[in-house]
């Protein structure tokens, strides 16, 4: 009976997965609705799916019980008939609650990948990351009793009895002693993996408002989700900049608001420094993402940025991504400048313009669709 329910449960999840894919745009832009459950699981709220039947409208009144005078509001939830506890017809009372479905980040990445037909990334660089996988393939003489290995224990006991001459073939009673016990135990496998780092840079000058930051946050969530599905170990670093740049943690990255001017080159310089210090390009897949509203202090600084990209940054990265989040104050000049230089043919730089929240899906496809 459990098998039946499990089979149906898998089917149900498959249907839910289909629904999420159908409405991917909606779900993608509402990552703030996702609940985080532990490290690798998110829960996504969805409207209840149910079988439509003729039924009465919900605002029809009824009979209740308790204190109160005519005109007083009714406490509780009338019409909500999810009486928990007992019942021989338990299945008939699903109630009107929304669904909350859990997905691992891996599953989310799969859905994203399938829907946007994202290509698998061909990693570069040597497999330097060592990851340890524990498998229960070994036997130990110490261990918890829940992992007791009966066969091996008995075998050990027989061996001991035969060697000490206490084994009687006519009356083969085998009683394991403490030192006979054997337990399942693990062996560590070391695997070599490709490693990757994502370096986020964001303009936090006054013109980047909450709406813009929200877009960046959503983009970052999906970029992380996708790249983590492609690489075993993914590190993330965060740089904020106005006229100067500094490295911060994730939380600060999305919260900080400065009022200074904007020198993009400062961020690029810091980014280069971080790569030089921690991430030798021969061992690492490097993904710098830069988000701004397209304003820069001067065209000289823009020129400096382009030089930095051309002379060193691009050679070290898998791909350099620039996302321009449109805002009321931003001129969008930086996007134009970059696209003049790097154009469409240059696939070491990916440029994307994000007009509003709805455009996030398209921009994710821009960034990740090249398979780099």
């Amino acid at each position, binding site marked *: 009976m459990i098998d039946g329910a499990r089979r149906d449960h898998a089917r149900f999840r498959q249907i839910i997965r289909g629904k999420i894919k159908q409405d991917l745009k909606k779900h993608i832009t509402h990552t703030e609705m996702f609940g985080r459950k532990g490290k690798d699981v998110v829960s996504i709220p969805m409207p209840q*799916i149910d*079988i439509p039947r*003729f039924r009465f409208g919900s605002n029809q009144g*009824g009979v209740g019980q308790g204190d109160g005078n005519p005109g007083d509001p*009714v406490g509780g939830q009338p019409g909500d*008939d999810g009486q928990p506890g*007992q019942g021989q017809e338990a299945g008939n009372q699903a109630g009107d609650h929304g669904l909350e479905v859990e997905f691992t980040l891996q599953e989310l990445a799969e859905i994203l990948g399938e829907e946007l037909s994202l290509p698998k990334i061909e990693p570069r660089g040597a497999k330097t990351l060592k990851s340890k996988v524990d498998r229960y393939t070994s036997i130990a003489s110490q261990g918890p009793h829940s992992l007791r290995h009966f066969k091996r224990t008995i075998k050990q006991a027989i061996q001991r009895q035969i060697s000490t001459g206490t084994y009687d073939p006519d009356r083969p009673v085998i009683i394991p002693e403490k030192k006979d016990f054997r337990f399942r135990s693990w062996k560590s496998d070391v695997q070599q993996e490709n490693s990757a780092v994502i370096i986020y840079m964001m303009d936090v000058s006054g013109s980047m408002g909450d709406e813009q930051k929200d877009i960046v946050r959503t983009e970052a969530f999906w970029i992380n989700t996708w790249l983590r599905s492609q690489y075993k170990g993914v590190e993330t670093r965060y740089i904020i900049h106005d006229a100067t740049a500094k490295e911060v943690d994730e939380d600060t990255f999305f919260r900080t608001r400065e009022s200074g001017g904007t020198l993009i080159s400062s961020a690029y310089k810091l980014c280069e420094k971080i790569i030089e210090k921690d991430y030798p390009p021969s061992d690492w897949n490097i993904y710098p993402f830069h988000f701004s509203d397209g304003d820069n202090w001067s065209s000289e600084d823009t020129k400096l940025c382009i030089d930095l990209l051309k002379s060193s940054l691009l050679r070290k990265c898998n791909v350099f991504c620039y996302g321009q989040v449109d805002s009321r104050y931003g001129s969008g000049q930086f996007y134009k400048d970059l696209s003049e230089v790097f154009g469409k043919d240059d696939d070491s730089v990916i440029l994307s313009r994000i007009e509003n929240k709805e455009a996030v899906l398209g921009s994710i496809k821009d960034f990740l669709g090249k398979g780099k």
Partner: protein
Amino acid sequence: MKSTALPLELAKIRDDIEGYAHQAGLDFFDVIFEMVPSDAINALAAQEGFPVRYPHWRFGMNYDQYSKGYEWGLQKIYEMVINTNPSYAYLMSSNSYVDQKTVMAHVYGHVDFFKNNIWFSKTNRKMLDAMANHAVRIRTYMDDYGQDTVENFIDICLSLDNLIDPSLPFSPEKKREVQGADETPRHLEVGKIKVDRSYMDTFINPPEFLAEQRKKAEDQSRQDKKFPDRPERDVMLFLLSFAPLETWQQEVLRMIRDEAYYFVPQMQTKIMNEGWASYWHSEIMTKKALTASEIIDFADHHAGILQMSPGRLNPYKIGIELFRDIEDRWNRGKFGKEYDQCEDFREKLYWNKNLGLGREKIFEVRKVCNDVTFIDQYLTPEFVDRYQLYTYEYNRRTGQHEIVDREFKSVKEKLLSQLTNQGQPNISVVDGNFNNRSELLLSHKHLGFDLDLKYARETMRSIFLIWKRPVHIQTTLEGRTRLYTYNEKHEFVAQD
């Protein structure tokens, strides 16, 4: 699979409880108790109590919700019992013994009810096998036609599974099985003017005249002949008989309909069934089975089961209290003309003729009533007063449900209208050849509650997908009679 038989100690307890139940006069099928872990209980509950069901996502959704509810400590299914002969009941292995005892006593109450209540008398007691057979057939169809195709069609059928006729199992004159369309045209010898002399016939009734008359008569009879000849409550049966379905689709629809009929009596007697079972677990536990050390736990759990929350009626509570009220009234003779006509409040309150008919009366009630007649006959003004029942309505202005009054008459009326037709809208097929274009006309008999239009639209779509011609429904919405149509362009439109 692990054995689900009861451990020795519980088997002994079971024997005791069964003995007490017999002594008390309960009359039940054999009950087979199985001891299962919580996830199996959740799985069984998800499948409406049956261990084998056809593959369908909704069982998976139920399972998802039950197991989460259990994990998060929001709900726990104590017991489940299936109406079959012998009856199967499941005990959750993690429950304490006092809970198991209570559940056993409760289960014997249910099974007595299943066996003796008249509304259960027509149900298939071999439903376990029937469900398993349905599962096999549907799996075969899935192999033949594809899981998606079959599952989508099941969804469509389920969407109609409340459009059946609860009185049908009790009306032998109604055709129970699928009817074939009666297509043989009647031989028409109409419109002929009577002629005494046969040689005059061709002059008085020339062929053109006859043909004309015959045509008139045919038109007339087509208008007269209603199809179906009287409104058909069993919409599923009507579709099964006349909708253009493939054989496998017919079979699926038939199986879903059979399963729907099986669950009807349980919906008709929710209050009584739970009330009766609670009454008996309380009797057996407090008078026989409890040990001193178990009393606190029992009282705690019993109170939990009967707990009322504001704005919601607990069928367990209403049921048990109404049975106790009836027992008390018949013990003291508080019924009949003399009592009803007595106007002295004090005298009525202390009325006692020591008749001792209570037990006998409640056994009779459990035999002949369903929830509607139970409330109709035995709800008293004193009861409404004692348990603080009220009616509420939705206030459009404040957006809240608000208490309207505590009058006995209106509480009873509201309660009855909620229970009528198991709380489902009363909908029949009126015309299978509406507008003479083989469109389907349904009619909603409005009994105080409006239909939910959003759901109506989706349900109409399901019917359209089966009937394959436009479907209409006549209903009353906010006091106006309206006709809604689901047409071939998949639009749902209102016509006034």
